[in-house]
């Protein structure tokens, strides 16, 4: 209720000793709500009283009440239950109310206990008034609450640059702070406490309100800060939430693992159906809250103990002004069932606090409002307004979203009919006023039908195959309807092809998953799959999803790595793959998985112990069944799987075949590690044998058998055929090693380039004989011009249609990568050594790019615009993580960004061909690529808006958007510009045609705005 309305409300009707007033209470929520209405006491003409009686006029039921002082005002609170989107009148009069007290607030030296009819909470004073226990009086007790507290994260970056600024962020825990707590008020219906504490970057005040009629515990938090903060978090951590069976789940997803994040607003609720206990958090609309995170692990996920962790994060604070304050509100759901929690989430936007409007007095306007039809966009909407007795119908004016709407009189003099066609989806604000006062009413307007979700069965599809897409569609109307669904595939920049048209019959309010079969057709690279839904030939809704159609998966997606240290338990595969899809990854690697990297590609046993370089850190038992299954699940989602391969040999295999070892000058095999775990030694050693083309060929044949066994799509080498690796023949002159007889490597491999090349060719031949589509991947070690010069044959062999890691360019703190410009130059120019041979290149695992920071936002653009793929963790599940949007963009426009035929133009030529206006921070000169064709050419000019400051750092402030940038293209005499298109990432991947103006050989286009980055595609013809 607006404060203005309250302060302007009633004139005193009655004498102090005798009064009566009526109020209209409105529940704007789509569910029945038990909530609390507050009324300014001075509007009743009384100060404070103990003689009061409140009753509902519809049932004569007496309601509980409480008077509180808040912000210098006395307020009357009353509690009642109201059905969805209805109004009810209450009567307030002098009298001895009999409603009983519902809330208790009691404290001793250690604990503050809040007790309501629904739950009982103990707050631990020794741990900053954080929740110690929560007992649901209608369910069970949460077994063990380890954390239920606010945490604030401060930027930890150091002040001075010493190659980098990195330092981990600071964490400020409520439970570790000296928290002062005081009760602001307590009584029958509500109690409110204020918790406050300080830390070295600021202070916090958390006002917590508990009520006796529902389970929402409202937190109103104010953070005051003097140093750069990153984010705030409310965290619940509960060990032993489930038993070993792992029965607990998180709603509404009903999932446990892996850890997930979901955007706010909304709710997350952890529930154990056996113990009948639950707890959750609600993020209301319009609060500066960013996302939820949860992690549920236990025995069934291969973890040693069960723990439920559930967090709600605030928006990013990194770029707020210093000093400053930051306010946010959220609610804890104290107990209840999953369905209750869902209801709470719907009705939490106003924390279940009702608006109260005075009626039956001079200022009263509306008694009730009743809708006769659904609130659907474009449809006729009818509502009947019953006015207050003293309200003159002629004086009433109605506005919807500030636009006047005519109302008509009805047979009843005190009623008005309201008819309108909503044009805006979502909340429509109805304002009914009589010139003196206003009645405000929110109505939620929906489309008649919506496409809620699109899932292309396979994110990366092979060309010329049958494919499928599933769309979830909802009929929001109260009658059965028939809708037409038109599905199309958009490729290139705007080439649209309708792939399916079908009708869908949906019952009233029905949500249905509709299967859409389609043919992939020719190679397209990235696509948009668009679905339009029509009702009576009128477009009702439209939605898109993004994917790819390609035979060579590295052309389209990003790459991740699953480590058997954690990825080994049945049950993980579906969610892991789902997460990769959500982040637009096309393929991933199973790392360090074999019983022997060199000779264990086809494990003989059903379950084996991994013996690889990772056993420095952990041991892992892996089952054949699990590996086969996750490859199958990945393929069902269009995700390819590459096993990690390595030119090292495990101890048992090495002892069986000592001739495969690579020896040092002491005559010992050169070991990579030698850890002992549970009485077993894990020792991986370098091998020399694979440089024998015969051995390499057999190794390739082993790989082929491994594909038959598991279904791999490619592989990714590490520590083999890598010129920077110690002991590689290509480094034979740099570091001596020996064979079993003591012959030094320089004598074994006089032609180093040839040795590596022949061995690699032999391996590829061994696989390709039976699996010609197999994709070779490698960690390049170093792909510098120096390597290209000294190892020309190897360079060509290893980069022909391959997937290549540029792990060597990760060093943000090395001088050569310390600025975005230097890094971009290295990425772009070194990749030109590999790209012309058809390779795709990736890099990742870079540090210093925290999600949400400017550097975190820029990094994926820089990698993409240099023509490289991301290798590493997904981002959609990180708080503040938005890189998935850039990866989605990368997949959609992979035909351009990842096209190995687009070659970097030589510096002189490219700067003659293109010039761009704008501030010096607009970085583009490194990224002008050209693809030549018989009848013309295509140019791709990528640009990012860099922040101020030379070094790669978290400290950047967001760059100011650059507007009206003029790009000039100096075309050749014999070519014409066909089109100029801007390829944009946000809010979703889309292309925008730019108007080209030609003046002689000068062609100019104006780019309206570059906030972070854009790609400009110029196509010409001769």
């Amino acid at each position, binding site marked *: 209720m607006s404060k203005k309305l309250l302060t302007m409300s009633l004139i005193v009707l009655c004498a102090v000793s005798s009064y009566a007033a009526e109020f209209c209470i409105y529940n704007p929520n789509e569910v029945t709500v038990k909530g609390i209405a507050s009324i300014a006491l001075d509007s009743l003409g009384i100060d404070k009283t103990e003689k009061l009686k409140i009753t509902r006029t519809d049932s004569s039921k007496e309601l509980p009440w409480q008077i509180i002082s808040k912000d210098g005002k006395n307020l009357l609170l009353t509690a009642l239950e109201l059905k969805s989107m209805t109004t009810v009148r209450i009567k307030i009069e002098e009298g001895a109310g009999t409603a009983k007290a519902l809330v208790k607030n009691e404290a001793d030296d250690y604990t503050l206990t809040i007790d309501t009819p629904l739950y009982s909470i103990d707050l631990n004073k020794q741990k900053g008034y954080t929740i110690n226990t929560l007992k649901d009086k209608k369910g069970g007790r949460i077994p063990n609450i380890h954390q239920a507290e606010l945490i604030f994260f401060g930027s930890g970056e150091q002040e001075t640059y010493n190659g980098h600024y990195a330092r981990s962020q600071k964490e400020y825990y409520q439970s570790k702070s000296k928290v002062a707590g005081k009760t602001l008020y307590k009584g029958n219906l509500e109690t409110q406490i204020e918790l406050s504490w300080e830390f070295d970057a600021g202070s916090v005040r958390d006002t917590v309100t508990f009520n006796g009629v529902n389970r929402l515990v409202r937190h109103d938090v104010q953070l005051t800060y003097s140093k750069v903060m990153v984010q705030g978090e409310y965290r619940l951590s509960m060990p032993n939430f489930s038993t070993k069976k792992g029965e607990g789940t998180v709603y509404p997803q009903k999932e446990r693992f892996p850890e997930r994040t979901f955007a706010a607003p909304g709710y997350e609720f952890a529930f154990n159906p056996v113990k009948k206990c639950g707890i959750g958090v609600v993020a209301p609309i319009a609060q500066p809250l960013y996302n939820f995170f949860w992690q549920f692990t236990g025995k069934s996920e291969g973890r040693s103990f069960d723990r439920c962790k559930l967090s709600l994060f605030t928006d990013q604070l990194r770029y707020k002004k210093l000093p400053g304050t930051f306010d946010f509100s959220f609610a804890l759901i104290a107990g209840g069932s999953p369905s209750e929690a869902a209801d709470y989430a719907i009705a939490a936007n106003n924390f279940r606090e009702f608006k109260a409007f005075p009626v039956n007095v001079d200022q009263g306007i509306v008694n009730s409002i009743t809708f006769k039809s659904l609130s659907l966009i474009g449809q006729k909407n009818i509502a009947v307004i019953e006015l207050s007795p003293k309200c003159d119908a002629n004086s009433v004016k109605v506005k919807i979203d500030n636009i006047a709407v005519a109302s008509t009189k009805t047979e009843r003099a005190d009623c008005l009919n309201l008819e309108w066609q909503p044009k805006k989806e979502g909340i429509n604000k109805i304002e009914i006023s009589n010139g003196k006062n206003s009645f405000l009413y929110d109505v939620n307007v929906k489309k008649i039908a919506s496409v809620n979700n699109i899932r292309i069965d396979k994110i990366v599809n092979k060309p010329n195959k049958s494919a499928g897409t599933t769309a979830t569609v909802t009929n929001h109307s109260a009658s059965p309807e028939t809708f037409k669904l038109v599905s199309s595939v958009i490729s290139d920049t705007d080439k649209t092809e309708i792939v399916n048209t079908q009708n869908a019959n949906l019952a009233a309010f029905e949500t249905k998953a509709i299967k859409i079969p389609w043919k992939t057709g020719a190679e397209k690279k990235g696509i948009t799959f668009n679905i339009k839904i029509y009702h009576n030939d009128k477009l009702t809704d439209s939605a898109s999803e993004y994917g790819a159609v390609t035979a060579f998966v590295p052309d389209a997606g990003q790459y991740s790595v699953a480590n058997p240290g954690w990825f080994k338990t049945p049950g993980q595969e579906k969610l892991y793959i789902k997460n990769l899809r959500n982040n637009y990854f096309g393929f991933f690697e199973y790392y360090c998985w074999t019983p022997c990297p060199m000779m264990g590609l086809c494990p003989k046993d059903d379950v084996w112990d991994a013996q690889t*370089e990772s056993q420095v850190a952990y041991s892992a038992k892996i089952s054949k069944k699990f590996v086969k299954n996750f490859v199958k699940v990945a393929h069902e989602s269009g995700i390819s799987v590459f096993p990690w391969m390595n030119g090292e040999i495990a101890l048992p295999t090495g*002892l069986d075949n*000592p*001739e495969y070892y690579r020896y040092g000058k002491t005559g010992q095999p050169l070991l990579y590690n030698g850890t002992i775990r549970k009485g077993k030694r894990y020792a991986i050693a370098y091998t020399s044998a694979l440089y024998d083309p015969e051995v390499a060929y057999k190794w390739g044949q082993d790989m082929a058998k491994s594909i038959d066994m598991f279904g791999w799509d490619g592989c990714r080498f590490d520590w083999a055929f890598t010129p920077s690796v110690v002991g590689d023949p290509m480094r034979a002159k740099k570091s001596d090693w020996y064979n*079993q007889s003591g012959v030094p490597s320089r004598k074994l491999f006089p032609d180093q380039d040839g040795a590596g090349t022949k061995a690699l060719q032999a391996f590829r031949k061994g696989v390709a004989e039976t699996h010609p589509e197999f994709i070779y991947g490698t960690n390049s070690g170093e792909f510098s011009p120096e390597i290209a010069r000294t190892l020309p044959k190897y360079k060509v062999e290893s980069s022909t249609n391959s997937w290549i890691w540029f792990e060597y360019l990760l060093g943000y703190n090395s001088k050569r990568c310390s600025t975005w410009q230097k890094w971009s130059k290295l990425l772009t120019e070194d990749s030109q050594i590999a790209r012309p041979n058809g390779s795709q290149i990736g890099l990742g695992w870079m540090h210093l790019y925290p999600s949400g920071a400017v550097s975190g936002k820029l990094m994926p653009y820089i990698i993409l615009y240099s023509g490289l793929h991301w290798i590493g963790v997904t981002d959609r599940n990180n708080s503040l993580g938005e890189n998935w949007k850039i990866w989605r963009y990368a997949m959609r426009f992979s035909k351009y960004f990842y096209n190995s035929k687009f070659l970097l133009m030589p510096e002189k030529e490219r700067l003659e061909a293109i010039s761009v206006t704008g501030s010096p921070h607009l970085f583009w000169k490194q990224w002008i690529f050209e693809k030549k064709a018989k009848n013309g050419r295509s140019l791709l000019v990528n640009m990012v808006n860099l922040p101020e400051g030379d070094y790669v750092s978290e400290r950047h402030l967001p760059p100011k958007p650059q507007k009206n940038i003029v790009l000039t293209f100096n075309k050749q005499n014999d070519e014409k510009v066909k089109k100029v298109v801007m390829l944009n990432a946000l809010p979703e991947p889309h292309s925008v045609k730019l108007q080209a103006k030609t003046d002689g050989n000068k062609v100019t286009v104006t780019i309206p705005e570059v906030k972070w980055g854009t790609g400009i595609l110029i196509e010409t013809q001769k």
Partner: protein
Amino acid sequence: MILKKGRLNMKKQLSIFILAIIAAISFLHAEEVIKLDFNEYPDGAVLGKDKWQTHMPASNKNASTYTVKKGQLEIIANPAQNLRGGYVEMEIPIMRKGTIEFDLNVNHNQKGTGLFIDLYNISLFWHDYCEDWRRYFPEPTAKRMKYYNVEPVGQRRLGAVKKRKWSHYKIYFDTDNDVVEYYKDDMEDPVYIDGAAAVLGRQEYLGGKLRIGSWGIAKGPMTFLIDNISISSAATQNNETSVKRDRYVIFNGLSYNRYNISESLLAGGVNKKNIRNFYIENPKPALTPANKFFINKMPGTTSMQKAKSLILVDCPFGPAEIIPEFVQKNAVKNVKQGMTLVVFGGLFALGKGEYQDSYLSDYLPVELKDAWQVKKFQSPLIIQPVSNEMKKLDWKIKPSVVYIHDLKPKKDAEVLLTAGDHPLLVRQKLGKGEIIVFLGTTCGSLPKNPQNPLFWKWNQWAKMVDLIVK
């Protein structure tokens, strides 16, 4: 040692008590010189009035405090400059051989370096930044710990320390043999041994004193609790021959899982308590063309004196002097007194383990060659018994070997087993004991169900190990 309630849990107390008794028995001629349990002081007493002398810097009289509380010594080390945090000390008679033991609780959460305890030239300190315990002996700057450019030369990390937990420490010193052994909680085998330590050393360093003090490197006060200090002397000529040799000390090298020595001994009826296993590790990723081995612990004087056999299983001596020369000397000394030293071959042993030019090489019964003497035989070599002891085994099925160290026995050595025409097990007496070398390696493989299984898969292998080792 006096045990106090509530400091260590009962199980730990009991185990420490038993171990202390064992340790005491091992030093049969020990005579206790001094015992400090601080029970004699009233609560709140400050050290410095009787046998203790206090030394504080003139500018900071409260650099550190030494107060007895509830029968324990509480030390508060306050921040100080230039490592001058003050100390208390008391005169201690000069002992050439003995132990100092104490209980200690690092009872603070500061990041710093506070407490030191010195006895003679042995200096111990607690590094509360790194949460570990270290020793310091003056050493040349070339021996500075890697990456430590400002801290004293001669320091060495001895092990991790958990803050706010009581631990029991023991240091055994023997100045005549230049040995200092450092024990923490496990009183059986030390966490480290100094093999060339000048325990009494230069008089100007400390002389006959026990000193407890503070370096004062911290931002705030650091609290330490000490109790049950006990300094005991041991007779300089211990009658080692009277100690029963019933232990098997095993250095497990790279292929120890295949040799299965420990399990074979257990199968042969050896009590698990009498098997002491030590492991050669190379845990960190090695990016350079050289192995970086280390041994997780060292057998202490007690273990060596009680060892019936010291067994090196495919165990390298280098690179980086994994088995220091003083350990080799001690091993030879114990062989002369009745111990058996057994060396099992492998890709990391003998010539491939840098045994050439080692102290031990002169005592081995084979002539060592270079690093490339392991030879593969295209057909597996059949193993045959030569000695009567070996003939006692069941030889109906004969084992085989594919890779052996192709070495010649020394003049006085006895061949116990052969592989084809090559010596495989060679023995030589030394004093009251003997040194045995097994020249086979656990390398190579055979097709399934071979007529002559590889020796470590042979059904008599455990018994053979039993015979060799015992």
